[in-house]
């Protein structure tokens, strides 16, 4: 199990489109993904969960990844967030 804290860098925060990208990326791997902000934690493979978490620009959140391919899954998710979900 690996854990990491990340900050939302793209301007609009995790709205529908980035949430969709996140879920699709997380779902590519076997490892389970949990995203937590403040006291809430949700399934990182659920768009409903992510959107309800409503993480805005500048907010930080924790990702916990657990499973056989956790390293690869974490690397892909970190890259996505750090590249601002491909937004300018």
């Amino acid at each position, binding site marked *: 199990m690996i854990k990491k804290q990340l900050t939302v860098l793209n301007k609009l925060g995790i709205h529908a489109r980035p949430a969709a990208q996140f879920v699709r990326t997380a779902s590519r791997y076997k490892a389970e993904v949990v995203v937590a902000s403040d006291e809430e934690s949700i*399934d990182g493979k659920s768009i409903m969960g992510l959107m309800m978490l409503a993480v805005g620009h500048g907010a930080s959140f924790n990702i916990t990844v657990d499973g056989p391919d956790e390293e690869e899954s974490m690397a892909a998710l970190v890259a996505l967030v750090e590249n601002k979900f491909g937004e300018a």
Partner: protein
Amino acid sequence: MMETLERRLRGMPISPGIVIATVKVEVAGSTAPGIYSIRRCEKQAEWDRLEKALCRTEVELNELKARVEHMSGADEAAIFDAHLLFLRDRSIMSKLHVEFDARMQNMEAVYYAVVQNFMELMRRVEDAYLRSRVADMEDVLRRVLKNMAGEHHECPSSRDKQPHILAAYDLSPSSTADLNRDLVRGFVTEAGSTVSHTAILARSLGLPAIVGIEQLTIEVKAGQEVIIDGYEGLFILNPSPETKEEYLNLRAEKEKAYKALALMRDLPAETTDGRHIRVATNVEFAHEYSNITASGAEGVGLYRTEFFLLNDGNMPNEEEQYVHYKDLVEACAPEEVIFRSLDAGGDKLPFERDVKEDNPFLGWRGIRVSLSRPEIFKDQLRAILRASAHGKAGVMFPMISGYTEVIRVKKLLQDCRDELNERGQAYDPNLRVGVMIEVPSAAMMADVLAPHVDFFSIGTNDLTQYTIAVDRVNRRVADMFRPAHPGVIRLIDQTIRAGIPTAICGETGSDLNLVPLLIGLGATELSVGVHVVPLIRYAIRHLNYEECREMAQLALKAQDSSAIKKLSREIAIKSYPNLFH
């Protein structure tokens, strides 16, 4: 039998055109499915039914996505990515398992309850953008329920074999894309705004449409004859024979003219005695770009940056603006694109929500906002300057009231050029700089402003409103709003006489009756909606400049707007009669 009276409802025009047809009314939203208990041995069968419905919905959504991608590009199609993820969302599915086992009811009833529950949670999310995704979920829910009923999903209208107009409380983006284009000739909704995805899709589909019609679903009766005037945002129920004839004529005029005009796209917009008038277009949405060159417009005379800047509640930074502006400049090169700096009331800015004003039209808006927020203003100026390196661009400023503002704006523009020099970033040193003339004081001071700018652009709507002091959306005084009012015409004349190139970018420029007057007053450019460009070019090619000039001199001595309109219209009808019949 009692006569059915004509009724006129107003809304926001989101897609131009005229349609006359009978109306079908689409009942909005998904209706709750019936509930019945199931036995333990039926559980698997229920899950199978759901799985089948989900598969079918997935296929539909993918088809829809491909269709939209083909029509409007990958960006619009990405709307459906979220739909697809909702469909098999793990939070929804695990909740469904729990609820299904607990309730032992038919799957559609449980599914409906669970999704409703999530939609309710979603409605409480603070973020407005996310809240609006509820419509996407509703759309998915409706499709799944339909597919579970075993009935093949049909778009709202494909059952109806007659061409018709669709009226609904609201249409989701996917049902807009779903409309049967052979039968649905236009649509009207009670909800909606001009900036919604639905509006954007309607335009790419080329369907005349109006949204935001109050009381629509109460007033309209299925099977009624109706007219959509997608130019004015007018929805007419039970049109009288006169109204119908008027609109048949109007439509015929537009169609006929279009046909003749498609052939003349490459002919110059020149009067019969050789005066060239630049016919450019007003643009607001990125997806209109593709129509610009097709219309034969000589570039963009007014690019309104508000939609792009304020659309999603977060102002794009310099870099994002640069990329956006550059795309437009490149799409129009070698023709010029004139960017108007942000023209909105202060209350529209995402970070100034609390601005409340008694008289917003006389308040903090347009250049006044930009000048008091110089860092934001300079982001935009630098982005426009940098875009100018990729083709031909100009910039103009709204709500200018006099000399001091012009000098302050030019100083900031120069600062931006210096900063770009320091950064080593390219821009066009010959970028044209202009001001909007829409405040009467600016028109009166035109000779003083002229030496400091390259061009004027007259915004006739605001100039009319400020000159006559009349708010045209106030029903009690709206009929006083007369763009041909002698006071307005004299201000236009005074502006043009300052001797620098002067464009007309308001609605007056696309009024075929008034084109002879504007040409006669000496306007050098008309910037109009992209659909009107071919008409205006045709009109100009049939006008004699000298004749228009003489008429304009008479008009300047006229006593009221109807006398002025009559003078101009006489020449219009004589010169291009087929645009009127």
